[in-house]
């Protein structure tokens, strides 16, 4: 028989699990990012700036971040609505849709890109229809937007879903009995509770879109200054064996992403404080 151990913390084995976690994080996250920074340091600040400060690079960065932001905004709205519908309503095929939400996670991004392109190309089923009204989707910025929405949507839905499940219908009923309108209840009761999770989903969707390569590359058209995404510029530099320049653009993306995510975190902290702990 074993002697009972003295537990100093509520969690057993905290030291060990934290050690393993930090070790793995170092191995798969910190080291690669460190290598990128190290490469940037070797390349030199002036070289990094010279690589980034070109019309074509700015255009690609602006395109990537702008469309990622718009796609994340779209996903925020429709991801929340989708989660709401899946949790609150019972209808035939609900389970299938629920399972299908994860599909963009499971699908190789290149397959998604090829499927989307086939669908939205001018001779595709949907692209044919939109082209008739003069709206081309594939090989334009619309195509990139569509691909980014596709890969980012599950992030919002999956982070918001459990929170909606937690919200008791009694809360809404209480709000209603106190005389609030449906809109008032939605704005002042439901929205604040969803806010932190929705913002997390937004940030994840944004982060995924910024770095997305496989699904975008087939539908984008890749024309410099118009439909060329920043990750493609990195690949182009690698193709030239310019590891330094590729790292420089990578660092620029990292810096912009970090700033954006920091900003979103600040909003999250602010919204948490405003509504208290949920």
């Amino acid at each position, binding site marked *: 028989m074993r002697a009972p151990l003295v537990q100093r913390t509520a969690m057993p084995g905290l030291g060990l699990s934290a050690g393993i976690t930090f070790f793995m994080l170092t191995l798969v996250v910190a080291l690669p990012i460190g290598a990128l920074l190290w490469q940037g340091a070797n390349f030199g600040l002036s070289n990094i700036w010279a690589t980034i400060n070109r019309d*074509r690079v700015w255009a690609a960065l602006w395109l990537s971040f702008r469309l990622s932001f718009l796609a994340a905004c779209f996903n925020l709205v429709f991801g929340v609505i989708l989660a709401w519908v899946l949790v609150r309503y019972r209808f035939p095929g609900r389970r299938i849709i629920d399972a299908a939400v994860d599909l963009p996670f499971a699908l190789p991004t290149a397959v998604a890109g*090829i499927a989307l392109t086939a669908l939205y190309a001018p001779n*595709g089923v949907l692209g044919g229809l939109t082209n008739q009204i003069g709206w081309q989707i594939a*090989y334009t910025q619309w195509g990139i937007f569509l691909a980014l929405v596709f890969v980012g949507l599950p992030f919002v839905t999956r982070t918001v879903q459990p929170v909606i499940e937690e919200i008791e219908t009694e809360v809404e009923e209480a709000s209603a009995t106190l005389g609030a309108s449906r809109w008032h209840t939605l704005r002042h009761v439901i929205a604040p509770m969803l806010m932190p999770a929705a913002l997390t989903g937004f940030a994840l969707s944004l982060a995924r879109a910024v770095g997305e390569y496989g699904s975008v590359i*087939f539908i984008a058209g*890749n024309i410099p200054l118009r439909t060329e995404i920043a990750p*493609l510029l990195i690949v182009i530099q*690698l*193709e030239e*064996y310019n590891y330094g320049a590729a790292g420089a653009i990578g660092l620029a993306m990292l810096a912009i992403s970090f700033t954006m995510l920091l900003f979103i975190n600040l909003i999250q902290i602010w919204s948490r404080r405003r509504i208290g702990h949920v």
Partner: protein
Amino acid sequence: MTAFRFIPLSLALLVLAPAAQAQSLLNVSYDPTRELYREFNEAFAAHRVEQGLEAPVIETSHGGSGAQARSVIDGLAAQVVTLALASDIDQIATTGKLPTDWQSKLPHNSSPYTSTIVFLVRDGNPKGIQDWGDLTAEGVEVITPNPKTSGGARWNYLAAWAWAEANDRDPAEFVGQLFANVPVLDTGARGSTTTFAQRGIGDVLLAWENEAYLALAELGEDQFDIVVPSLSILAEPPVALVEGNIADDAQRELATAYLDFLYTPEGQALAFKHYYRAWDASAADPEDVARFPELDLVSIDDLGGWAKLQPEHFGDGGIFDQIYVAP
């Protein structure tokens, strides 16, 4: 609970690739040779067995030529590389994995088969495209991959350049006009073929001759025509043995035999069959050989060689960047 103990072990086994056997070879190649090497590897294995040797395990990896070269530079243990551009193998040579004079080791500049750049147009050639000069006409949409990411596209670009030089046109201006007619720049040759053939974009696809024939064979002869321009480029996709990745003498013998087999009548016949222009037609199906029309072919050496062309045209800020990005 005990079953879970084996999880880390089995995960480790899943992650680590099975150890290489004695008689195995990895051929790192580029995209359009997929079909060729599938058949060639079988023929080579059969050839070894006929000689009373053990059947070798030949693995082939395909991808963009530059990406494949980078993998080998970064440590992918390929004993044999069969890439789209000599400059990609030159880049591997700078790491010391193979001698810098690798291209003189095998016949014909180490290129057992060659190809050229031709035009694939829609059935009946509705835009009447006959030669390079027609590609810059108003309203003609040209599909080619991006020369910055695709080895094949560099041949396209240089073929257009060579034609302009031969026809007293300003080559930079001509190539600039040609690329201004490109609505979609895919990252690789296969992507461009898909865009043109399956998505219905563009009037003409600039393609490796072997890719054009393959598209014709797979997607229907009634849909496309091949147009051969008056002048094109002699595309020499070279092969080399990667000295630094050879484990022992047995493997060197196997890799050498593999590359030599490309030059045998049987290997050459397979190259012809897969729409490459090869050197020795003695064992080839006459129909496969008769397919290739005569045309003026300019070689890379005529234009100055890869060592000069690569940085001058496709390097950062090179001629392609200037003519294409500058408004």
